[in-house]
């Protein structure tokens, strides 16, 4: 857990005003306790990512929410895909082979 001022201290490009703005846009959701904001390790990593997008890759402030929403969807989809993959990988070899074969047939008919 990190307080907002510690976070601002730890990331060179980050300004205090960014945090308020990103909370308003619902890009980050820190925990609030006694009027103080607390960031989990995951939330800190998310703030670092937003800083990279905004200040190193020069993504416009208005475009940030679009990019993040797409990224969030990408991660959610990957999580589901990995869950599905884990479920398939836990099946018998014959079931795995059938699933793989079906995927390949699908991929082949797409081309």
């Amino acid at each position, binding site marked *: 857990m990190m307080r907002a001022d510690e976070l601002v201290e*730890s990331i060179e490009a980050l300004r205090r005003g960014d945090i308020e703005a990103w909370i308003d846009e619902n890009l980050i959701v820190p925990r609030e306790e006694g009027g103080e904001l607390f960031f989990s*390790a*995951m939330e*800190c*990593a*998310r703030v*670092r*990512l937003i800083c*990279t997008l905004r200040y*190193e*890759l*020069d993504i416009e402030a208005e475009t940030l929410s679009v990019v993040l929403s797409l*990224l969030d969807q*990408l*991660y959610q989809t*990957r*999580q589901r*895909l*990995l*869950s599905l*993959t*884990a*479920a*398939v*990988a*836990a099946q*018998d*070899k*014959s079931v*795995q*082979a*059938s*699933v*793989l*074969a079906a*995927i*390949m047939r699908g*991929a082949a008919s797409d081309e």
Partner: protein
Amino acid sequence: MKEDMKDPYETLGIARSASEKDIKEAFKRLARTCHPDLHPGDKTAEEKFKAISTANDLLKDKETRRRFDAGEIDASGAERPRGQFYRDFAEGAAYGSHAAQDGFASNEELEEFLARAFAGGAQRPRRPHRARGQDVNYVLRVGFLDVVNGGEHTITLPGGKMLQVKIPEGAEDRQMLRLEGQGMPGFGGGPAGDAYVELYAEPDSYFRRKDDNIHVEVPITLREAVLGARIEVPTISGAVTMTIPAGSNTGKTLRLREKGVRNPKTGQRGHQLITLKVVLPTGDEPELAAFLKAWQPNSPDDPRKEMLK
């Protein structure tokens, strides 16, 4: 300069005379292609991004760039710890729980499975490179005897290519055979993938397999049952003659030693287990009927006595 520290100008692909704007542009361009959070499936992204970040950190600061150019510091001077990436968390939960629940060593196994399924389509390399060909999967339906006895089969693939499949003796239903190098051709001189052939054994009308043993029900006539006989019975490797002892009832099991399936590991054959089934003559047998009418059994047991107690 440390050997693994590459020249930061080279890392960013810029000239030593590059302006501040050039440096920023070069970093931006490279960061888009390898930021780990923007390339969650690419295991090499983190390494690449660290390298360009270190180079960028060193060169974007006028003072450290001047000192590096003057030879006062080396490229490692700009290295600074970076926090964890967002992707480590965004997928950490999914990976962690699966690793624990399903006994996977790592997410690599899952990524590998995905790569096999989609042949790495999600991260198609931009430049041609040497890569192993894709593995392919086929299903081969064969008769029961072809699976237990083994043999050669040919699969004709959609493209007209023929694939020779050698089924080992003692193979099993749903067994996966790997044919090395019979998959899709490799790229850029890489080796071909493997073909995986899954066997589906069609059930046999008479033989049933249980591990290495073969079970079969053999009908016998009333005369053979009462008097005993030498009869011919089928086995998976051809008919053999065996003795039915006198007084063999329906349900009696006889064993033919080592007439079962050869175990591919031990080389030992299982047994064939024969269950007898007494069948009555199908046509009219007035003599038999007349005999039975007059017949007084020595042991007049009621076979249903136990059921009706």
